């Protein structure tokens, strides 16, 4: 937002100029090193929106914006022509911000923050304008659903009516729910909330819903990171946790590593560990058994109990994997190699499918 404004002004003005907020903090300046500093001695000046005020080295004018935000525009007073030019700059800035306020409501602002399409100054102004608490623990849940006939945001706001949270639509089939956490709330609360939302939406709206949980961040500007991580959780979960309709970035583990790795490296790894053809020799029963064995921390007794298998049947299947792959899953290193190779194989299959 401010970046665009600055670029446009720099194209037209050769002299020293700038824009400050109502407190005199410099937002935009032709001398970039001054951005973030405060204008000196403006407290002694009576700067109004209607006329140009002349200071020691600068001409000043204020710009009143609906929403009670004021800006101060200023330009060097060494040239008389700058007096008139400042009036034009003030008009331009007023028009720019009026458009922003009229067309850019808080949802638009939050959407830009979620997508990281905003610079620090725009962020600061938006937080001020929309009275958002900057320092607070937040996390973003991204919910992806088949096109719903009724308002998903309305549903969520009814599930959590009193909370200081935000619901931002990201498209026809995607919504972000920005949760501000209380002191006693953490990952477990996010998980419970996400599961509640997913189940309730599916029950009430009868659409298939997948939820991605992002990481917890400390200030409002970082919600873009939480949002992208929630989206990453959805993508990774779609491959590696396909039977689960909630995926949590905080527990993605190896999946995250694989998803963000170079494809060539992954393909090489697959060739060197367990080849694709080898996997084809393992039937569903074996794969499901192995998955259960991993879920139970390589504990044969617990896996056998949970799968209602005889211990010997389970051992037979593990030995079958050893015979086919050369990996003994009772051995931690071999188990890690198998799990990683299997996940890499799934991911490469996904990439090939998309291609």
């Amino acid at each position, binding site marked *: 937002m401010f970046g665009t404004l600055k670029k446009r002004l720099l194209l037209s003005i050769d002299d020293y100029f700038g824009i400050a907020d109502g407190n005199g903090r410099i937002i935009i300046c032709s001398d970039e090193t001054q951005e973030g500093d405060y204008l000196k001695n403006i407290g002694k000046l009576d700067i109004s929106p209607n006329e140009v005020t002349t200071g020691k080295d600068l001409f000043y004018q204020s710009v009143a914006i609906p929403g009670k935000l004021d800006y101060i525009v200023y330009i060097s007073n060494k040239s008389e022509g700058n007096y008139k030019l400042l009036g034009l700059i003030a008009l331009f800035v007023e028009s720019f911000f009026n458009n922003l306020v009229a067309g850019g409501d808080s949802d638009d602002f939050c959407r830009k923050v979620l997508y990281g399409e905003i610079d620090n100054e725009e962020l600061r102004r938006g937080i001020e304008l929309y009275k958002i608490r900057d320092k607070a623990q937040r996390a973003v849940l991204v919910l992806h659903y088949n096109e719903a006939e009724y308002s998903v945001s309305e549903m969520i706001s009814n599930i959590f009516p009193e909370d200081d949270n935000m619901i931002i639509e990201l498209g026809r089939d995607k919504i972000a729910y920005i949760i501000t956490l209380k002191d006693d709330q953490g990952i477990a609360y996010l998980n419970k909330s996400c599961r509640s939302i997913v189940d*309730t939406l*599916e*029950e009430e709206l009868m659409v298939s819903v997948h939820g991605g949980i992002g990481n917890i961040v400390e200030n409002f500007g970082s919600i873009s990171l939480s949002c992208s991580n929630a989206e990453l959780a959805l993508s990774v979960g779609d491959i590696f946790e*396909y039977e689960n309709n909630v995926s949590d970035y905080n527990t993605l583990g190896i999946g995250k590593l694989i998803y963000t790795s170079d494809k060539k490296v992954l393909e090489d790894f697959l060739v060197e560990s367990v080849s694709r053809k080898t996997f084809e020799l393992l039937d569903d029963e074996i*794969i499901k058994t192995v998955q259960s064995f991993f879920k139970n921390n390589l504990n044969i007794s617990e896996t056998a109990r949970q799968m209602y298998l*005889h211990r010997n049947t389970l051992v037979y299947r593990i030995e079958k994997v050893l015979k086919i792959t050369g990996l003994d899953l009772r051995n931690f290193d071999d188990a890690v190699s198998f799990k990683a190779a299997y996940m890499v194989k*799934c991911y490469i299959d*996904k990439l090939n*499918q998309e291609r």
Partner: protein
Amino acid sequence: MAKVVLRNVYKKYEPSRGGITAVSDFNLSIEDREFLVLLGPSGCGKTTTLRMVAGLEDISAGEIYIGDKLVNDVQPKDRDIAMVFQNYALYPHMSVFDNMAFGLKLRRTPKDEIKRRVHEAARILEIEHLLDRKPKALSGGQQQRVALGRAIVREPKVFLMDEPLSNLDAKLRGQMRVELTKLHQRLATTFIFVTHDQVEAMTMGTRIVCMKLGFIQQVDSPQAMYENPANMYVAGFIGTPQMNFIDGVVIEDGKDAYLKIGNSKIKMPENRAKKIIGQGYDGKEVVVGLRPEHLHDEQMYIDSMPGAVVDANVEVTELLGPEALVYCTIEGTNMIARVNPRTKARPGDVIKIALDTARLHVFDKDTENAMFVD
């Protein structure tokens, strides 16, 4: 009210999702007004099956009918179903009435109709006196009933429930089992209920579908499944404590059949011997299954079953009030006997145990299938 039919239904995930077949060749006809329970451990395909009926999950092959209508390509909202899931949330700022009415309001149902349906559902659930209250003022059981009410007001042909009692404590879960059974009787509608809890399945279902790794293992009434499990998996899954299993060998001797268990030779009753003799089982290694209540330590049984008495080393006894559990080893295998609470068995004792040969189960050691059914 409707019949639900699944014909050769498969769910196979794409290779990028492991290529696993989550549900294989699922064939089932669920009768109108039936309370059908899909039972099995995590990953057996029960939830996937329910979600395919709901339309929340695509099917890879096969046909699903609700009523007479093929619903493969019908949107979930048009399938005339209602769902209740595990992690339901009530709307905290709304009254019970509004909670139940919310879905209908979304669908622009006329006000008078909403009022009628909510009051009718509240009457069935016996929560009419709570309609003005907010969820916070309700007990856990009442909140669960409101969640059910949201489904009831839709007046669906089929109710689909995925572990709706899992988040409740044990006491409340017991109460809600009874409530759900009553609700099913009052609504006289088809229920499909998913659970991993065999007690829920046994107490509520009119029929149980026991699943494993995406395959149906057995479809039967709770009683039939308990008494005649189709294989060792079902036998072990149904019943608490679970069925005892011990290795044995079939021995044929003229018109008689025996099971050799360790050093003990157990004579089979005549009717069962007939099912074994001449079937090629002589000398075959088998697994013998015995429910804990079919191991007896009382003298009366020991005297009346002289051909089926074995020694047992008692390790632990648990008095449960109406019964006692004796944890023991028989021919080196750990077993549990459910006996009279006045049993004299104490840890360290070697006692006589009579095996009820009329009730024992014999499973093929290779296929794990029951070798005969009564």
